[in-house]
């Protein structure tokens, strides 16, 4: 089932949480709502679920498969909602938690006790916790609780699965494991899912589509590859990973050219370079532009060597090198080396600026 959101606004007292949001969540895809805290991503998710109501407006619509669901209460929307802190019913066993959605159905729709048992055990198998049926939530680990919460949401055969920071409260290892598991589950079941996260790595790794939000607005949406390699503005580039920012301005003499430094005048522009987009050399390369910087700190533990440089003005520059490249330059703290960008993005007034540059 596809979900469309048209011109949705939501205010809390004086705070505008969502500002004219329009976006589409395609059928059968796993979409990530990504943004910093306070960007409105959870608010949007709750509006889709029907747990909150958008501001009254004639154009504001939430469509499930093209049908406006504004009048439908939470229960009628048939959404599976998974909370960050699981919200398992603490006084019920795992079995009863999963069975809840079936037991509260109207008498004519309610499955028989044998059917309920069968469904719950199928779901327990799906989340790989068959042996836990009689435990209480307090007796489970965080990762197990989250999987039970997911099984409980799936029990009502939801048309769409909404997950609010589903892995936020778990430690790094369980988190990585669980998101891979969710990805596989999604590939198997193919329902429309939306999950909220502030972790860009998680969004890029798990989702088919990423919607990046900031201050109640959608900044960019697209496949993980698209948003990572073609960020439309400085915010997106910043949010999707570490980046070095250099200030510059658009050259008056040769329009279409940005010159680094000299930030005092008009036509400012920023040059953004990811840490892994640098080439480091011992002497100034003749064929390309470079800047000189001093090594201040080296961290070799990890898949990449992380080097902190300081330029002449004392600004920090982060560079990531492969271990092989690092061995070739044999850098040590205090060394003066030359950095030349392999790739960079120029943004003027926050938006992409296509043109030449010089350092």
């Amino acid at each position, binding site marked *: 089932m596809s979900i469309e959101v048209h011109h949705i606004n939501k205010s809390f007292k004086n705070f505008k949480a969502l500002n004219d949001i329009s976006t589409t969540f395609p059928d059968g895809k796993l979409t990530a709502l990504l943004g910093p805290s306070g960007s409105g991503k959870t608010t949007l998710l709750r509006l889709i*679920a029907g747990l909150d109501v958008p501001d009254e407006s004639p154009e504001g619509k939430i469509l499930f498969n093209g049908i406006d669901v504004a009048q439908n*209460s939470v*229960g009628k929307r048939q959404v599976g909602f998974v*909370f960050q802190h699981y919200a398992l*019913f603490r*006084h019920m066993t795992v079995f009863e938690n999963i069975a809840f959605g079936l037991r*509260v159905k109207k008498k004519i729709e309610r499955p028989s006790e044998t059917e309920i048992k069968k469904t719950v055990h199928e779901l327990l198998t799906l989340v790989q916790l068959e042996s836990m049926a009689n435990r209480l939530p307090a007796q489970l680990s965080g990762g197990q609780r989250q999987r039970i919460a997911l099984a409980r949401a799936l029990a009502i055969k939801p048309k769409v699965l909404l997950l609010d920071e589903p892995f936020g409260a778990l430690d790094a290892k369980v988190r990585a494991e669980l998101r891979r598991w969710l990805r596989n589950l999604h590939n198997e079941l193919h329902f429309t899912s939306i999950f909220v996260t502030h972790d860009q790595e998680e969004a890029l790794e798990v989702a088919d589509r990423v919607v990046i939000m900031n201050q109640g607005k959608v900044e960019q949406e697209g496949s993980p590859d698209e948003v990572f390699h073609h960020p439309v503005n400085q915010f997106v580039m910043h949010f999707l990973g570490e980046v070095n920012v250099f200030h510059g301005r658009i050259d008056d003499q040769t329009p279409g050219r940005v010159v680094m430094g000299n930030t005092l005048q008009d036509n400012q522009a920023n040059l953004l370079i990811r840490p892994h987009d640098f080439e480091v050399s011992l002497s100034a390369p003749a064929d390309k532009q470079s800047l000189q910087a001093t090594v201040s700190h080296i961290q070799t533990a990890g898949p990449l060597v992380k080097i902190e440089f300081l330029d002449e003005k004392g600004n920090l520059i982060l560079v990531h090198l492969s271990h092989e490249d690092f061995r070739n330059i044999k850098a040590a703290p205090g060394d003066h080396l030359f950095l030349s960008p392999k790739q960079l993005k120029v943004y003027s007034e926050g938006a992409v600026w296509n043109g030449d540059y010089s350092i």
Partner: protein
Amino acid sequence: MDIHPHKNGIQPGIWVNLVIALVCLLFITAFLLLPLFIVFTEAFNEGVLVWLKSVGDEETLAAFKLTLLVSAIAVPLNTVFGLAASWALAKFQFWGRNIIITLIDLPFAVSPVVSGLIYVLLFGLHGWLGPWLDKYDIQIIFAVPGIVLATIFVTFPFVARELIPLMTEQGTEEEQVALTLGATGWQTFWRVTLPNVKWGLIYGVILSNARAMGEFGAVSVVSGHIRGITNTLPLQAEILYNEYYFTAAFAVASLLSFLAVITLILKSLAEWNTQRILRSSK
């Protein structure tokens, strides 16, 4: 768990521990155990038969029945009110919420005698509603309805006070999940909200009941002390004592103490259970 408590830097020395423990025990003995012991020895001073005769006295039995009747009306009403109030106050944010929470405590802050007087001023013959009530021949003051009203007022906060912090801590996420799973408002209340506060509720009801049976001040003002009709157990004990029927007075007192001890045992059980559940939900 720390298996070497004496190595803990903030543990005081053994003498300090001993002195503190002694002071506590002394206080408990002098102010709690001794009076309880005296009540029962005085009550059974002249043997079990005399005790039975005192307790079986017609007026005392009537007082016992009235006490049970008043509790049986006041406690359920306050339970329903307490549940509704704490649900509304803990699960929703609205204007005036804090004022209501403060108001619920009013019966704790006001002297019980004043609570009784409020009802006399309201329903008494010379009170605001007195003439109107008199016209229709409805008697509230110096009758059972007045005693029930005064008891309700005095025991008003117990259930709500117990549930508001508990429900506030539990939040509303479980209820929200229940709604997304298709449960109606009632189903959510009966299957999620109520079971989650079950033990806290029982604890509040027990406290409320203890106070309802033991209330003296407010009830004394509105009762009129009509023997065999408007005397509750505490009032009966006082009357007997004032008339120098010491053994009978203590027999009644022992009945009340007995109810109190049962209440305490139930309370500890409920408390122990609440703690256990709170711990396990962390």
